[in-house]
């Protein structure tokens, strides 16, 4: 009888515990990261009585955590992938909507500006129309600046998010180290500390959202966590930190640095996946190229427009001054340089100009230029002097100072251009709509020859505005300013002091044609028409791409990348959902299951309780029998 009582007592205890485990499962049905637990029953060894063995009841040998490490790893990997594309997609969407929006994009600004140029070409003497063009010019400069500012804000946002992510990673890695410590201490008893393991898995999952990590469980139950190219973030109860620092060239360009025991290591491109991977990828794959392309457009527009404005005459009778100002390529010196080399860079050829970043490196004897986005080594022509600068990819580079071997300089050719545009023309009179010179046939001419409108083929000629007379000595020979005897061929260009004209028809001896400075020609729009032509002229990529087309290319490029990121995010979401489903289906609580267990254990408990009753009846029967 005592063994009957004992046996039922073990059952009551075991079922109570099992009910406790079930109620814990029910209570945690909605706890994220909670793995359901199952009480494992085993029999207690009985005691021998004679040659018989009678069972000793039941016991709960362990409370098992239902967790599949394989599924955990899958979930971790897909979480990392999803976080990467989710971050990318959020940021890419901002640029995407920014560029094509008629209110913020460049297209409407460019169009209104060139429409104003045409309006002025229709009535070049009109001061109000000139004023309107200046207004549009300001508007266009503002558009460029505003777009660049938005890019700048995105850049700061990337920096900020990187900093937050690094803080998060540091917090999570020290939390993991802490949990590792407690697990090592409690595992000594042989029973797994289920809740601590859950806690650690939750922390690793949160870490995976920030950056791609790999993990390994050690013999003492602690988990080692590695990032990047194998840098250890957590070993046992020891956590290593990350920090952020400026890049080699630019203190405002933030990169992640690993603060290991042996010192700091920049992790630049080693970090993939997670929010950090997404941020770094967004910066190098979308933000930088977009800014460079916008800068390329800005530089091409400003340079060509200025050149044409310089080739015209304004209402004051002066050759046109620059219409817009734009900064030359930015030069950034590496923090590691030991020499004092200096560099001046300028755009030499728009047709070859890319807007990309380049690194100029001095190896002690010669310079080499490397394009940063594709790593291409750009062959340089020239000697690097002011008179004969190095030229590569449309950039003229003049070097000076005393560089040391291994010194590096970053040349940002397009990135900062768009933000630096300024409208230089303040006075309506200063817009150069007229050609600098004009031609005329003398009204005393006898022949029927006509002269074409004067075109400024070389507006930089110092004698451009000097008057000239073409006089025919006989029908086939002419002199210029009374000197020389040049053979006349109908329709051939005649170039005098930077002005080109052609004469057609049959001149007679004594016929005169004049070229004069175009003073007072308030109604002349010849240069205005040429200014307007810049909108559709091929300037970039060897003269194949106009500024409009280059901007269209940027919009399509950003749209295409965003589209592709969106598709990847969609795919990654499915992968993540499947991994989550697999994980949940194995580890999460099913309430119906727990309800069934509740009934099962309750009934079992009631049954063993009945056994106590039976023991009692047996005992009573025994007492009654002996007391008689």
């Amino acid at each position: 009888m005592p063994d009957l009582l004992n046996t039922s007592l073990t059952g009551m205890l075991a079922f109570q515990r099992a009910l406790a485990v079930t109620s814990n499962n029910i209570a945690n049905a909605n706890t994220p990261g909670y793995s359901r637990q199952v009480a494992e029953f085993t029999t207690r060894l009985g005691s021998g009585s004679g040659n018989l063995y009678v069972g000793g009841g039941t016991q709960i040998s362990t409370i098992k955590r239902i967790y599949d490490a394989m599924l955990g790893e899958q979930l971790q990997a897909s979480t990392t992938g999803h976080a990467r594309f989710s971050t990318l997609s959020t940021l890419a969407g901002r640029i995407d909507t920014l560029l094509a929006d008629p209110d913020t994009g460049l297209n409407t600004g460019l169009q209104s500006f060139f429409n104003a140029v045409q309006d002025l070409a229709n009535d070049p003497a009109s001061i109000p129309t000139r004023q309107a063009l200046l207004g549009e010019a300001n508007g266009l400069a503002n558009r460029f600046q505003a777009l660049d500012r938005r890019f700048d804000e995105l850049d700061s946002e990337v920096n900020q998010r990187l900093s937050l992510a690094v803080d998060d990673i540091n917090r999570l890695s020290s939390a993991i180290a802490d949990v590792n410590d407690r697990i090592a201490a409690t595992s000594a008893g042989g029973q797994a500390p289920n809740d601590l393991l859950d806690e650690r898995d939750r922390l690793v999952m949160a870490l995976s959202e920030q950056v791609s990590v790999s993990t390994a469980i050690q013999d003492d139950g602690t988990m080692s966590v590695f990032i990047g190219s194998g840098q250890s973030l957590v070993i046992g109860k020891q956590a290593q930190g990350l920090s952020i620092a400026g890049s080699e060239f630019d203190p405002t360009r933030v990169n992640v640095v690993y603060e290991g025991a042996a010192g700091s290591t920049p992790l630049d491109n080693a970090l993939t996946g997670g929010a950090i991977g997404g941020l770094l990828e967004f910066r190098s794959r979308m933000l930088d190229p977009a800014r460079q392309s916008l800068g390329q457009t800005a530089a091409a527009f400003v340079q060509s427009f200025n050149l044409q404005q310089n080739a015209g005459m304004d209402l004051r009778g002066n050759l046109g001054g620059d219409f817009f100002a734009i900064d030359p390529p930015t030069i950034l010196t590496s923090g590691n340089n030991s020499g004092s080399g200096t560099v001046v860079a300028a755009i030499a050829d728009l047709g070859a100009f890319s807007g990309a970043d380049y690194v100029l490196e001095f190896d002690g004897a010669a310079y080499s230029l490397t394009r940063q986005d594709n790593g291409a080594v750009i062959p340089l022509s020239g000697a690097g002097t002011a008179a004969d600068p190095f030229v590569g990819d449309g950039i003229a580079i003049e070097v000076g100072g005393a560089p040391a071997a291994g010194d590096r300089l970053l040349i940002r050719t397009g990135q900062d251009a768009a933000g630096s545009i300024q409208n230089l023309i303040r006075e309506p009179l200063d817009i150069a709509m007229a050609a600098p010179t004009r031609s005329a046939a003398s009204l005393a001419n006898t022949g029927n020859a006509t002269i074409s409108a004067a075109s400024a083929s070389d507006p930089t000629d110092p004698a451009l505005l000097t008057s000239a007379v073409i006089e025919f000595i006989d029908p086939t020979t002419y002199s210029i300013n009374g000197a020389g005897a040049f053979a006349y061929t109908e329709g051939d260009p005649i170039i005098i002091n930077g002005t080109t004209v052609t004469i057609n028809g049959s001149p007679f001896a004594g016929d005169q044609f004049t070229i004069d400075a175009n003073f007072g020609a308030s109604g002349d729009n010849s240069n205005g028409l040429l200014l307007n032509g810049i909108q559709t002229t091929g300037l970039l990529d060897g003269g194949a791409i106009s500024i409009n087309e280059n901007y269209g290319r940027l919009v399509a490029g950003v749209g295409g990348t965003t589209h592709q990121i969106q598709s990847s995010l969609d795919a990654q979401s499915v992968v993540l959902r499947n991994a989550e489903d697999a994980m949940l289906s194995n580890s999460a609580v099913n309430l119906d299951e727990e309800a069934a267990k509740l009934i099962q254990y309750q009934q079992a408990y009631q049954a063993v309780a009945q056994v106590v009753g039976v023991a009692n009846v047996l005992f009573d029967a025994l007492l009654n029998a002996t007391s008689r």
Partner: protein
Amino acid sequence: MRVSTISTYLTGLSAMQRLQSTLDHTQRQISTGRRILVPSDDPIAASRALEFRESIARLKQFDRNAGIAQNQLAQEESVLGSVNNVLQRVRELALQANNATQSNETRELIAIEMREHLENLMQLANQKDGNGRYLFSGNLEDVEPVSRMGMTFAYNGDQGQRLIQIGEGRQIADGDSGADIFFRIRAGNGVFTATPAASNAGTGIVGQSSVVDPSVWDQDTYTVRFIDPANYEVLDSGGALVTASAYQSGDRIAFRGIEFSLTGQPGAADEFAVTPSPYQDIFTTIDKLATAIEQPIIGDDSRAAMTNAVNASLQNIDQAIGAVLNIRTKVGSRLAVIENQVDSNAALTLTIQETLAGVEDLDYAEALSRLSLEVTLLEAAQQSFVRTQQLSLFNFL
């Protein structure tokens, strides 16, 4: 497969969220009428749409430019119409003055009217456009094109012509310089003039002149000199004899590919100069004409002088009328070109607009049926969520 309670929630929830997101996209498409909401929806179409919209904006600007050119040309055409009327009236007056029935007094009156017309013509040449800028001074829009200093008339503008962009690669002049309209007019018959010397004593009158063979005409200056009233000789600019002949009134004097008729009786040593036509502006022509008419006729020789002057002027006026007509024809054809270009711009705009609509506009029928399908799906997802969440063993405990 084992299903956890939380994943039934999450599955239902994420399904609903997904459906809501597509529903929201469709709903925004319908409310904006656009298929492409952001470039990433269809990057190629989005960048093409940018190009199309830019083309449409450019074409719109071309139409605006064309309107301005049309307006300028219409103003020019109206002024040239008036110029033509004035010239026609001056021509009539010249013919009247040439009539032998006119007395010195009536010719005086004709001259007065003629000078009025000269004034009028100068005002027309110095006409300003709607913006207060001179129409006929070329590009020197602030300079009065025609001014008078005593007997000479000067053109102060330049010979430039402003081009207006009315289409892609299509430019058209919106005016003509006063030099072309009023000054660059060949005197005489356009090739040469035959002018009696002022000292002529006879009554020789130059009549019709023409170029018979342009390939022989060498643009030299010739003198037809009467040796005596019945014989003349032709000398070239070097004084060499070209030809010599007997003369009778009404003879055609012909040499070097040209000829002109001469009537009346020139005196001995009378000379007629044959020179290549110089440019003579219309104002000088009328001024000279009026001056010639004003001269009182006191004898046959002065009548002959007047007749010669009037004849020469009539030729010049005809040249001027021809020049104005020429310019008016150009203006008319420019207006026609503009109209054609505006039509073709409009047709192009329409085509581009249609293409643009095809690229970025929403197919409403498709979108609305998609919307109703998505609504149905969402409703189904919501219902099934509620139904499955109601199932629990605990309900029966």
